[in-house]
């Protein structure tokens, strides 16, 4: 059973923390302001072997486990959730389906440059009218003479304007509701693929989010992930299981950051002449934050450990996501509240953590959907 990080894992955490402090921290504010992703970072992190952590050595990857991926994600999100989102999608939903279900050819083509950060990946499932209900997708991939013709539009796609390739979900058999879906890899330069617009958001400003369109976009049949038509959503289930555990790590990282700034705030701030840290109510609040973060971290890494053992169920993954993303909200809300007016200044990172955290209750299954998944797995 997973109880504590071993020496190797602790050393890895130390290394990634140093790397992110050095490479990411100094550029966060600039890119948050510009509301754009620092694209050069992909190559930098590639050089540090910090992209696609679970990608095997055979394809140039570091070949690490889920626990390591979570450590890296926690540390990156502790510094910036928006940048964390781009890196997560690239190494997660963007490339995971290729790694798990793709042909050898697809793996050889897409994984090595992704690992090096030379090619950026994205993942496109959501459509304007299909969010929680993925089976109501309208994007079609119809086979025409050895190729597939894609038509449809996607929205809220992370890395949308900066990606070099995107893993797209589309119906090959629209008459088979839910099951007639497949995943395709579309290249940026493919005819008929276009970025409609970049979207502005409440938070995660460094993350690039866009609306995409596929308009008679032809892709060779080799770029379908998996051998057979149909079954794409089942492939996604597997990827989502991993992604939901990653959300535990993201939440823990943001919570940790919010906690650290709050702790230093209460050490210095005064109310009516008294140090805030002397207030019993404030001491309770910080104690609770520390307790929640401890439990979030434990839940996340237990999920990751189960995943590494091949034992994680969807229920395990959904519990990690639901618990951690919801608990994070409590932490950032209290953190911003007690800093009063100072907490609202855009030069105070606490309001960024607060805005960024709000996202986590939405993607890869909203909180409501996580409840429904867990209930379903309870057999009721």
């Amino acid at each position, binding site marked *: 059973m997973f109880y504590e990080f071993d020496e190797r894992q602790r050393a890895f955490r130390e290394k990634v923390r140093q790397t992110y402090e050095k490479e990411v921290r100094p550029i966060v504010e600039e890119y948050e302001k510009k509301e754009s992703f620092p694209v050069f970072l992909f190559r930098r992190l590639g050089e540090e072997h910090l992209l696609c952590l679970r990608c095997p050595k055979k394809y140039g990857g570091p070949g690490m486990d889920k626990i390591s991926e979570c450590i890296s994600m926690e540390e990156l999100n502790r510094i910036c959730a928006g940048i964390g989102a781009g890196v997560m999608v690239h190494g997660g939903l963007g490339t995971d389906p290729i790694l798990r279900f793709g042909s050898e050819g697809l793996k050889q083509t897409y994984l090595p440059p992704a690992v090096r950060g030379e090619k950026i990946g994205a993942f496109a499932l*959501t459509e304007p*009218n*299909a*969010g*929680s*209900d993925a089976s*109501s997708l309208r994007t079609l991939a119809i086979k025409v003479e050895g190729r597939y013709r894609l038509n449809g539009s996607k*929205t*809220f796609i992370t890395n949308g304007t900066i990606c070099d390739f995107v893993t797209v979900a589309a119906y090959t058999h629209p008459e088979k509701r839910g099951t007639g879906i497949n995943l395709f890899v579309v290249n940026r330069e493919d005819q008929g693929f276009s970025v409609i617009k970049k*979207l*502005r*958001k*409440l*938070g995660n400003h460094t993350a690039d989010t866009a609306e995409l369109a596929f308009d008679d976009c032809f892709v060779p049949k080799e770029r379908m992930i998996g051998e057979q038509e149909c079954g794409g959503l089942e492939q996604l289930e597997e990827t989502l299981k991993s992604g939901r555990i990653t959300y535990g790590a993201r939440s823990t990282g943001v919570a940790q950051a919010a906690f650290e700034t709050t702790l230093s705030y209460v050490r210095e*701030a*005064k*109310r*009516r*002449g008294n140090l805030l840290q002397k*207030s019993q*109510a*404030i001491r309770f*609040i910080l104690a609770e934050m520390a307790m929640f973060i401890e439990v979030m971290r434990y839940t996340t890494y237990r999920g990751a450990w189960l995943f590494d053992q091949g034992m994680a169920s969807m229920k395990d993954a959904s519990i990690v996501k639901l618990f951690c993303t919801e608990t994070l*909200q409590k932490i950032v*809300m209290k953190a*911003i*509240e*007690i*800093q*009063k*007016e*100072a*907490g*609202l*200044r*855009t*030069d105070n990172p606490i*309001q960024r953590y*607060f*805005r960024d955290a*709000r*996202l986590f*209750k*939405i*993607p890869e299954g*909203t*909180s*409501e959907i996580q*409840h429904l998944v867990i209930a379903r797995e309870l057999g009721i």
Partner: protein
Amino acid sequence: MEFELSEEQKDIQKAAEEFARGEFDPDLALELDQRGIFPETIWKKATRLGFIGIHYPEEVGGQGLSLLESILVMEAFCRRDSGIGSALSLVDLGSDLILKFGSRDQKEKFLPPIIQGEKQMTVAFGESEDEQDLSVLSTQAEKREEGYLVKGVKKYVLNLSRADMFVILCRESGEQWLPLIVEKDQDRMEIYPIEKMGLKMISSGDLHLQSVGVPYENRLGERGQEMDLFQYYHRVKSLRFLAQALGLMEGAFERALRYSTQREQFGRRLSQFQVIKHKLAEMQVGIEISRSLIYKAALEVERGELYPKALFISKIEVGRRMTGIVDEALQIFGGYGYMAEEEIERFYRDAWTIRTQLGTEEEMRDLLSERIVGKKNEP
């Protein structure tokens, strides 16, 4: 006991709602918010129609109504748009102090320009992020022959860039408190607006006073009234923000309700899912509780009650109800709710900015518990 708005009050409410519906535009609001611009034209129109200073006496051009009516107007405005509504609710912060503590001359001089939409007024008391903290008060007013010379730094002043008049709390000769009405002096005042997360149409920031001359007749209130004035300010300011909170939660609720009846997933409208219905029901609970508390609080403040219990309670309850409602409303919008194009995204940021103005829950519990067990814990 009557628990209904009068016909006249309902008419005022309706008029304010109609005005807001006609004048506030979501695209304009989005732009003003993103660029941090005050809604100048709408403000001018609102003053022309008498919505600003509705509770001022008729002698100075007001309508002689009570605080409750002014709250109904702010509520209606914020229901339509939290950003524009809040901006309009804060153009005359501080005028309540002149109404209550000002001399006849002061009222005649400073209030009509507000009513006529020529000037705006604000309050600059705080010197840290905690506006209520009196222990840090160090702005000095030196007595000279021709008047006071005021020096100091005020922090997080609301409506900083747009205000033409400030009510400032200083210390006279380093000791006694001294509330003064200070007119804008370009040469001797510097303003440093800060960028904040929400309510971006109304600026906020630091005010540096570099030996600003203030005539003796601008002293506000009698000696000995300073603490009353300070308390009254916090009460009416809280009421204003509570009214904004109420309007904001109603607006968030209406938007979420509308969206939930239009958006379909899994072949059903969101409003057909039980958990979504329950979220909407819970929003109603929050709105009703808040409304009752806030209207009661307005009456308490109007009557000058020593201990406005409903006001203190509403600052805890309404604050958390509002942020809870806007959070669920955003959630009902799903991914769209997180996008800047949706009004709810702005409501979310504005709600937390308003909540901050109400004080923290812990502070309110401090205040309430002082009344229960006494300041020195003696019942």
